[in-house]
């Protein structure tokens, strides 16, 4: 599997474009947001919520639901648009992103329906997910736990403490998905803190590992629908493009996070996504 930046030229279908346009609505409301990190996540979140996760939006604490933790909390807009799409939260809230009277901030909070854990400071979500997976196994409620990590996040030692523990505990009901867009805030992951050989690292921690194009809905679905390997947690390395859907933002560090987003920026983002 190639690791080169921007190697994935996957086209986006209407739903992927729609979800990105919803993210742009949030950006317009807050005039700020982690654009690159949200756009690289869209297909991962879409496939999870459209095809994989068991949930009941009218009963967010349903005990048998699958748990989904966005550990790279700065990609929250990609989660929010799915929670809106599935009816956990009203669309009006997306239009109040980061505003004083809104419930959706720049990192997801547990008080929001459908958000399993407050994240934002990196390196917390996997351990929380482990606790939930151990509980699901103990309660035999059939729930699975999905934790979405960032690549920059994987610099954190706590991620590897958790990975060691997940492997030792043979948590078959735990799925880690890494949004491997090869960029962190300062520069590429290869320059800041090279994760390679990344898939091998997860294998060494006793995970069953697969690698997919993280913008290819079919590949994501197939990887997620595969039964888990006996005695092993699953790790899916999702090769993605930071800023996917807006060519000038793709792999462009200036678009990792933007504040003071103008109406012109918004219109341009919408246009670019539409014609992608």
């Amino acid at each position: 599997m190639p690791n080169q930046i921007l190697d994935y030229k996957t086209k986006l279908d209407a739903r992927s474009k729609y979800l990105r346009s919803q993210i742009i609505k949030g950006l317009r409301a807050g005039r700020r947001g982690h654009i690159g990190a949200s756009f690289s996540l869209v297909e991962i979140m879409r496939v999870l919520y459209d095809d994989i996760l068991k949930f009941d939006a009218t009963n967010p604490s349903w005990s048998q639901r699958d748990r989904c933790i966005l550990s790279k909390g700065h990609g929250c807009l990609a989660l929010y648009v799915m929670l809106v799409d599935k009816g956990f939260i009203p669309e009006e809230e997306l239009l109040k992103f980061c505003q004083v009277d809104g419930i959706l901030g720049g990192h997801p909070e547990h008080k929001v329906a459908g958000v399993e854990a407050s994240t934002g400071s990196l390196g917390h979500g996997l351990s929380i997910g482990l606790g939930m997976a151990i509980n699901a196994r103990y309660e035999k409620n059939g729930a699975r736990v999905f934790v979405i990590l960032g690549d920059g996040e994987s610099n954190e030692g706590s991620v590897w403490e958790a990975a060691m523990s997940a492997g030792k505990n043979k948590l078959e009901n735990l799925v880690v998905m890494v949004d491997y867009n090869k960029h962190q805030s300062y520069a590429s992951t290869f320059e800041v803190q090279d994760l390679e050989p990344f898939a091998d690292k997860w294998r060494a921690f006793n995970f069953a590992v697969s690698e997919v194009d993280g913008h290819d809905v079919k590949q994501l679905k197939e990887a997620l629908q595969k039964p888990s390997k006996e005695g092993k947690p699953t790790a899916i390395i999702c090769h993605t493009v930071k800023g996917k859907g807006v060519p000038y933002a793709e792999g462009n560090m200036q678009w990792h996070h933007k504040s003071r987003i103008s109406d012109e920026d918004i219109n341009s983002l919408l246009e670019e996504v539409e014609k992608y």
Partner: protein
Amino acid sequence: MRKTALNCVYELAKSNPDIFFIGSDLGVDTLKAFKEEMPERFLMEGVSEANVVGMAAGLALEGKTVYVNTIATFLTRRCFEQVVLDLGLHNVKVRLIGNGGGVVYAPLGPTHLAIDDIAIMRAIPNVTIVACADAVEMKKLIVQTVDYPGPMYIRLAKGHDPLVTQEETPFEIGKAIRMKRGDDGLILTTGITLRTALEAIKTLEVQGLDVGIVHVPTIKPLDTDFIRTQIDAVPLVVSVEEHTIMGGLGSAIAELIAESTFEAPKGFKRIGIPDIFPDQYGSQDSLMERCGVSAGAIVAAIWEISKKYVVSSR
């Protein structure tokens, strides 16, 4: 105290299927029976405190009550952010049981001295902090922790600590306990320095001063109204703790005094470990003595303050 606490957790877990235990890398055979009888609820996850606390949060978010045990310094300093965010922000029922609060690990040197644990925990919203005086009190505490809301830090002492409370001594999380009434002054203490305070008042009594003691096992939330009433009745107050004078019980009492209006001004002194890294090994007792946390230091402090305040207030 540690053995009592852990045995009590084991006993509670036997009849409560929602109780989990997570250790890091504890001594061999710790809670052996728990592991044998309830293996699915006994986890030993290695020297990885950040992960242990996060896992505990995940279990607690699912409605479990989780007891986590390891050395106090590693539960407070090493994984501070996990305690703040995973436990405090989510406000979940995780009980951090910290071994060796204070200078218990004197022979092991400064890396193992938990002299700032209370200050660290006090800064976190939603966290309750309890330091018991002995095993008798610890047993009463652990029973109450099952249903108490939110995260809790429980500071353990050395083990085989002298018993200074009785079965009939009242204990309730959040409540301070008047151990002795006295008109000339008041000692406020937490944890095992209750015994130091008891020793000091005996000397003071012989020397002609009638000094009371209020034991404050729950440092947060502080039993503010009761403590204020007790302070109001005396001319001088001394706080005593096996902890740095920065941010622990003494600081909490200083804040209370500073923000209260009393009939007469109060003399006040914090007795605790000064703002230094202790520089000796030896024993818990020898290091406490070295740091000025002793019955003699309490007696001296009270006489010193009384020169001004007892005379002026009478």
